[in-house]
C-alpha cells in the first residue's frame, strides 16, 4: 500500500497583482516539473479562504514513484532541490508574511 503525503503552506497575499504573480510562479513550477525527471511531486491546489480574503492554503501532494522510497521522503528530497528553494524564495517575495508549513500523511481517500 503506497501512502501519499501532502504539504500545506498557509500564506497571506493581500494584493491581487502579487497574488496573480504567485499563481504564475506556481504555474511555471508545474510546467518545469512536467518536463523534469520523475520525483514524488504530483501537483498542487491553491485554495482561497472565503472567510478571510487574502488568505490562501497551498496544498502540494506527493506520491510514491519508487517502491522503496516513501512519499514523505520524496517530499523531503524535493525540498532540498535548488529549483525548489528558488521557487520558495520567489513565492516569499510576493507574500505578506512567511508561509506556515504543515506536513500530512494520507490516512484515508475516497476511491471507488
Amino acid at each position, binding site marked *: 500500500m503506497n501512502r501519499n503525503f501532502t504539504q500545506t503552506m498557509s500564506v497571506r497575499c493581500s494584493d491581487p497583482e502579487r497574488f496573480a504573480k504567485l499563481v504564475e510562479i506556481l504555474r511555471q513550477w508545474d510546467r518545469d516539473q*512536467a518536463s523534469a525527471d520523475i520525483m514524488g511531486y*504530483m501537483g498542487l491546489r491553491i485554495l482561497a479562504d472565503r472567510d478571510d480574503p487574502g488568505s490562501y492554503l497551498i496544498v502540494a501532494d506527493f506520491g510514491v*514513484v519508487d517502491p522503496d522510497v516513501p512519499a514523505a521522503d520524496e517530499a523531503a528530497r524535493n525540498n532540498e532541490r535548488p529549483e525548489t528553494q528558488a521557487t520558495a524564495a520567489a513565492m516569499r517575495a510576493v507574500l505578506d508574511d512567511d508561509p506556515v508549513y504543515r506536513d500530512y500523511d494520507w490516512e484515508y481517500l475516497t476511491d471507488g
Partner: protein
Amino acid sequence: MNGVFDTGIDEHDIGEVTLVARGIATAVAPETGLTDVQAELLEAIAAALTGHRVDYRTLDPLGPAELADVLAARDLDYRQRIVHHMVLGELVLRPIPVVVAHRVAKYAEALAIKDDFVRVARRYAQGAYGLAWMDLERSGFVEHVREADGDAADAARLPSIAPPDDDPALEARWQAFAQLPPDSLGYAVWDMYDSRGFAVPGAPGGAPPYLAQHDFVHVLADYGTNLRGEVEVFALIGRADPAPQGFAWLATLVGLFETGYITTSGFFDRDVRDPVIQAPGMHLRVADAIRRGKTIWQRHCEDLFDFPYHQHAARPVDEVRAMLGVPPKSATALEAGSAPLCSLDGMSETQRKVFTERRGGAG
C-alpha cells in the same frame, strides 16, 4: 511459437524475438502476472512486426541487464521502440502499479534509453494525471505543431492543438474537393466529412488544419471514423513517424479511450464507456496498424502529418497510397473486424445516423 507469418517488413530471428518478449513481459507484469489484455496485445504486436508468434503467458523472466545484452547490437531507435512496447503494455493497465512503472524505468535505463513516455507512465502510476498530461502534450503534440508552424516561440506559448478561428478561404479549399474525380484523394476525404456531417477545416466547428491531416490517413489506410478506427489511424501514424515521439498519438488515444487517464486532448474527449483495446479483435487491429505504420516509415520516412495532401488531392487514392508505400491491411486484421472507411461498422452511432440520412445506403 508456431511459425513465421508474412509481415512484409523484414526478417527476425525467433531466438531474439523470444528473448525480447521475455524481457518485455517481465518488465510489465503486475505481481499477479500479465493481464489478458497485456498478453494479447503484446503477442499480437510481436507477431505483426516479426512474423513470429510468442505466447507471452508462458515466458521465463529476463532481467534488464540480460535484455540489454540481447539488444546490444541494435541501435538506439530500435531499443527505444522496444521500450515503447513496454510502455504500451503498461498504459493498458488501470491502475498502473508503481512497482511496474518503476521496473520499466529500470529496463529503459539498462537499454540506455531516456524516454519521456516512461516518465508519463510513472506519473500515471503515481496518480499525477495533470502533470502526466502536461508531459505527454509537451513530448508529442507541441513538438509536432512547432515543426508544422515553424515558429518555436509561438508554439511553446499556445495550446498544442487549439480550436481554430473560422477561415472562409480554407473552408472553400476543402469544399472544392467535392468537384474532384470520385476516385481522387480530395473527393474521398470530402465525402468522408460530408457523409458523416463533419464540419470541414475553416468552417465553424471544423477541425484544426493540422489535425485534419490525419483524415487523409483515414482514406489512405481505409480505417473507420469511430473510436476503434481512430485508434487504428493513430497507431499507424505514430509508428510511421520517423521520430519516436510519434508514439504520443497512440499513448494519448489509449489514455482517452481505454483507461481514461486523459480527460481531454483538445481534439478528442475521454470516452471509456466501451473500452477500445479490450474489444474483441482490437489487439490484432492495433498490431496491424503498427505494422503498416512501420512499413510506411521504411518506404517513405516522413511524418504523415507533414505530407502535403492538398498538393496531391486530385490524384487517385491508389496513386497516393503508392507514393507513401501504404501496405494493405493483413488478413488477420480484416478477420478481426478492421472496418473500411465506407462501412457502417466503422462509424459511431451518430455518424451512422447522419450517413444514412445523407447517403441513404448501407455504407
